[in-house]
């Protein structure tokens, strides 16, 4: 899709979000959850670029979320600072874990990520006296940019911030994809050996992508934690990781916009299934995805691209 069309679609989404949440303020929470999810999905699409999929990336969201909760409880830091620190923690974890990870490809990469995430999940669930166990950790609503806000005001402020972060993250990801490192990352999928024979360290390039993916998941986890005021081990469960990949494919893994479109569709099907279909949202989305894999494997964004046939193919 041509870049001006992208801006148009993104702008339309943004306008829709603002209008909808102004008209129905109770929708702020699901929108925030969708944005948090979308951020994490951006992280996963970076890895999909390299042809790899992680079934454990919810662990970075979880780490950041728990970081936010700990620091919120211990030091009553401002929300902005909490997000920054939570994300930083996830980035550092990603940098460290990435050192091991980048030597693996394919199903082994997926498995090792899953294994790490389940180790974290088990630790968070069992060491209750530190982590709150399976009930998780609650923390009080922090100040926002120095202001003490009531629930409604806080949510609006957080929503505004999340929208800014979403736009920024989307821009960062697409810019990264177009850069020399991002293009080399994409080449890992098709011919990693050739990269080595060009003198490019595929491992180093992949590590960079991994750190970016962990950071984005951490950002999503921080926003999620602030939205809920509660973190639980479920945030890092393998099913959560699977859902993130699910949304990536549903929305379209080729573009950051697909990540957010997918996240919104996911969240709103969940919401309405609770009301209309006795909560069977998993069944609905599961069937939708199965159909999409056969009919439109490039996801909703791919479909949109074809419809709005801009210049150049959607890749």
């Amino acid at each position, binding site marked *: 899709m041509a870049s001006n069309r992208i801006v148009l679609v993104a702008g339309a989404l943004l306008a829709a979000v603002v209008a909808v949440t102004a008209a129905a303020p109770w929708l702020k929470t699901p929108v925030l959850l969708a944005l948090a999810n979308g951020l994490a999905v951006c992280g996963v699409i970076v890895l999909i670029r390299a042809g790899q999929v992680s079934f454990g990336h919810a662990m970075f969201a979880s780490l950041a979320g728990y970081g936010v909760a700990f620091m919120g409880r211990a030091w009553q830091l401002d929300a902005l600072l909490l997000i920054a620190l939570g994300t930083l923690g996830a980035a550092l974890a990603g940098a460290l874990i990435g050192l091991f990870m980048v030597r693996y490809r394919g199903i082994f990469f997926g498995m090792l990520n899953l294994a790490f995430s389940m180790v974290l999940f088990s630790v968070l669930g069992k060491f209750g006296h530190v982590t709150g166990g399976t009930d998780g950790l609650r923390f009080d609503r922090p100040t926002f940019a120095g202001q003490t806000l009531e629930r409604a005001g806080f949510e609006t402020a957080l929503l505004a911030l999340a929208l800014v972060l979403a736009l920024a993250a989307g821009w960062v990801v697409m*810019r*990264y994809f*177009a*850069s*020399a*490192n*991002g*293009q*080399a990352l*994409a*080449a890992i*999928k*098709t*011919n990693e*050996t*050739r*990269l*080595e*024979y*060009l*003198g*490019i*360290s595929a491992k180093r390039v992949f590590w960079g992508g991994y750190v970016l993916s962990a950071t984005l998941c951490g950002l999503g986890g921080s926003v999620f934690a602030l939205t809920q005021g509660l973190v639980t081990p479920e945030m890092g469960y393998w099913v959560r990781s699977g859902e993130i990949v699910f949304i990536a494919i549903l929305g379209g893994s080729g573009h950051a916009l697909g990540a957010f479109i997918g996240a919104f569709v996911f969240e709103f099907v969940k919401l309405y299934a609770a009301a209309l279909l006795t909560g069977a949202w998993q069944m609905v989305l599961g069937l939708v995805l199965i159909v999409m894999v056969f009919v439109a494997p490039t996801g909703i964004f791919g479909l949109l691209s074809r419809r709005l046939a801009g210049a150049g193919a959607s*890749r």
Partner: protein
Amino acid sequence: MSAALLSTRGLSLKFGGVVAADAIDFDLMPGERLAVVGQNGAGKTTFINICTGYLKADAGTVLLAGTDITGQSPRAITRRGVGRSFQLPQVFGEHTVRECLLIAASAVQRRGGFWAPLAQAVDAAEVDATLELLQLHERAHDLAASLPEGQRKLLDVAMALVLRPKLMIMDEPTSGVSTDEKHGLMAVLMKALDERQVTSIFVEHDIDIVRRYATRLAAWIAGRIAADGAPEQVLRDPVVVKNVIGE
């Protein structure tokens, strides 16, 4: 001894019971166009795999312009100025022809910092010139995987050429290409290498190609260089005729 570009001393490698390289001593001078012939299994590919870092020799040394590169990784050796192309062309199938070259160029050039788009991070003019040199400019925006075999081979070489190598090692550049296209392909290749002043080694099965494009010929038999010199001379050597050409 004047500065050899590539030298090996006592290079040896055994696979199980097979002697793939038998104490090879070898010198390549800058500007030479060396053709390498030999039957399958004679050790030609083993030799270039050792020289490009894909294999480690059991014994012996490899020197590139006087520097010891024995045992270094393909990446390190590439960075020292050795470009390589493959029997089965190794390109980035889901990228366009131009993007493949831009990515290759980014290995040796980086401008504009971390965020600069690829096309601005490298000297795009040089990339486009290379495309023209290898007659790929008309397919610049096509996916690499959509190219016919001959052009993919040229792309393979182009990607290595963009690294500004001193030495280019090509593994069967004309294999898989139809007979009437072979000469055209070689002509374009050799002209490009001459223009960029790149010394070359190419493994080849087609004797006509060897006669026409090589300045020197080395014949491999059972892991050793059985004959080495001017192509016409080597091609008349009875040992070579018996073991290599008569195949």
